[in-house]
């Protein structure tokens, strides 16, 4: 199921086709951007469907925030095109774009109270006072902060500031809301609550959300579509389920959840060799000497050691609430992570049991779909080391 290399490439490059028929509100083509020597975006193309919740996901320095800032108009792309409802967006200054942004650290105006913060955009547009009052109240109701109009910003908690920041953006009735790691400054509990609320808000408002985060769980919870990025390239585009169940490459597999990534050898169609054992799998693939085999820790069961299983010794056991997390050193010398409700004692010998469809095969270093070649991959790594830091 991973082997749709051709199909995935089509998603990233042939942006005009869309199986669902939903119109694209934003289309980006070959965006590049460098800060000094560092190439942050190396020619990315994607589209955003009308009214979807799209997440740009990746580690820091991957270019996700830069992409969002190009959409918002705060950064200029070196090359490439962005169209918004079919019209060129890049020529417009930020104050003329029909997008609104929720900033990383809220960026509320400290000298204005809650009402005036939310009303800022409407005041600039010189809407009548009555209408402003109505719209502000409605926006505050949407974010569940009615009655906070006269509060000062420094009297609000982090979660409340976040809601005000969202209210300040949505009150302008943008067609697209850009959110730059808006939950990053909140504590875990608040973050979980806000995830659900944001998704609800997006459905109720019926507008497009473009969300930037490095938190894979956040992305999986809220998104209709996830774009996984690394080192200025798009790694994979798909629904949360696609990306979790069928990661295209070892990076995506590792970034989205825990993964065991073991080197293997493709012997023939639907047969792979790991740690000297021949295992059936469901991936039709040509024989290949070096592949990465990805197996999710939760897909592995612990059983009695036996001849036809990969066996190993349990090194550590940690109770995680729902399951036990065990590190197992296999006879082949690899460390496997297993998450299971069954517990094996540390030091005991166990066998690892998994089915053919738990095995995901990916080409080694199959990593940058639109890269020119191995050269550009190593350069991409260097760029990441140099650290542009998009936090």
């Amino acid at each position, binding site marked *: 199921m991973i082997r749709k290399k051709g199909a995935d490439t089509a998603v990233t490059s042939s942006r005009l086709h869309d199986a669902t028929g939903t119109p694209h509100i934003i289309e980006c083509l070959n965006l590049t951007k460098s800060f000094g020597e560092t190439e942050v975006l190396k020619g990315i193309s994607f589209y955003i469907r009308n009214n979807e919740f799209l997440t740009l996901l990746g580690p820091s320095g991957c270019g996700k925030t830069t992409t969002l800032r190009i959409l918002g108009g*705060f950064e200029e792309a070196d090359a490439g095109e962005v169209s918004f409802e079919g019209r060129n967006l890049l020529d417009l200054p*930020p*104050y003329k774009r029909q997008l*609104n942004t929720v900033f990383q650290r809220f*960026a509320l*105006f*400290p000298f204005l109270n809650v009402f005036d913060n939310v009303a800022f955009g409407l005041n*600039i547009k010189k809407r009548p006072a009555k209408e402003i009052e109505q719209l502000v109240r409605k926006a505050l109701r949407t974010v569940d902060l009615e009655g906070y109009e006269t509060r000062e910003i420094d009297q609000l908690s982090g979660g409340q500031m976040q809601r005000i920041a969202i209210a*300040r953006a949505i009150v*302008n009735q943008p067609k697209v809301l850009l959110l730059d790691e808006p939950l990053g400054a909140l504590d875990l509990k608040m973050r979980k609550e806000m995830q659900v609320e944001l998704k609800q808000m997006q459905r109720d408002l019926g507008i497009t959300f473009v969300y930037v985060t490095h938190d894979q769980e956040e992305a999986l919870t809220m998104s209709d579509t996830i774009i996984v990025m690394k080192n200025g390239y798009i790694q994979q585009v798909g629904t949360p389920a696609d990306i979790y169940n069928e990661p295209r490459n070892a990076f995506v597999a590792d970034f989205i959840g825990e993964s065991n990534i073991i080197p293997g050898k493709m012997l023939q169609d639907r047969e792979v060799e790991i740690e000297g054992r021949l295992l059936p799998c469901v991936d039709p693939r040509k024989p290949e000497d070096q592949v990465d085999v990805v197996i999710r820790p939760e897909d592995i069961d612990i059983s009695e050691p036996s001849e036809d299983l990969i066996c190993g010794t349990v090194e550590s056991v940690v109770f995680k609430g729902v399951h036990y997390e065990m590190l197992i050193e296999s006879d082949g010398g690899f460390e496997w992570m297993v998450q299971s409700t069954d517990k094996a004692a540390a030091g005991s010998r166990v066998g690892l049991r998994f089915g053919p469809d738990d095995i995901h095969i990916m080409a080694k270093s199959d990593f940058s779909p639109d890269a020119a070649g191995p050269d550009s991959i190593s350069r991409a790594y260097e760029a990441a080391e140099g650290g542009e830091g998009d936090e």
Partner: protein
Amino acid sequence: MNKSLRRLSFPYLLWILIFTVVPLLLVAFFALTAYDSNGSLYFTLDGFKNVFGGDTVAFSFLGLSVQLPLYINVFIRSLLIAMVCTLLCLLLGYPAAWIMAKMEIEHRRGSNILLFLLVMPMWMNALLRTYAWLALLEPKGIVNNFLGLFGLGPVQFLYNDFGIGLGMVYNYLPFMVLPIYSVLVKISPSLLEAAADLGADPRRVMLKVVLPMSRPGILSGINMVLMPAMTTFLIPDLLGGGRYLLIGNAIERQYMVSRDYTTGSALSIVLLIFVLLSMQIVARNTDPDADEGGLVA
């Protein structure tokens, strides 16, 4: 606070006591006493009577003319000149502070040189700096010699409003720029982006975000220019040629020329109370939580 740490502040407290508190008490004492012809001390309110009463002089401003007691007249004129000087410093200083802050925010460098150039003159003694202006502006000075090459001048720069205004603005400009700069440089760029995002063009971003946010800096700058400008006697003395009597000169003359310590001290006390009241007004308009805006930010 730690007790032994607190002890470290004793030398400073002693210093304040000897050189600030005691002299202030002495001034108050002088203001209320005088010597009679026998050389013995007696209590008197003559000093304050001289300040608020005495000869009246016509005070003209914007076509209006009022008869006011001499020192009240001087007082009001000092205040007006100081206010004009403060306004000029603000108009000149704000854009400079903004340019420096923008350089610092956008490039994280470059503003250092400007800051250095701004502060450098302050390392030199104010008297020397003011004498330098004399050498530049006097009728046979450098500027007039230069103008003479083109058959112009000599222009009378000194001993008039222009000379005093120039001297004051030159001397006090850094005290306006620095507090404003220290506030502007702390404005998060994301606030400016947020304003643009909400539809504000660059002019509105300036008016609706930058200006309100720099209020503490502006107030602090006004405080630091208005008060010294009001009380200076050096600048009007040198560049005004003694013809311009401001409150600072008036006090100086009472002490040094007339040797009337009683009136001089009474004038000082009145000035002090006025300064304290004005500072109170500025402080009330400043957000008490905002520790920004000070020269030492």
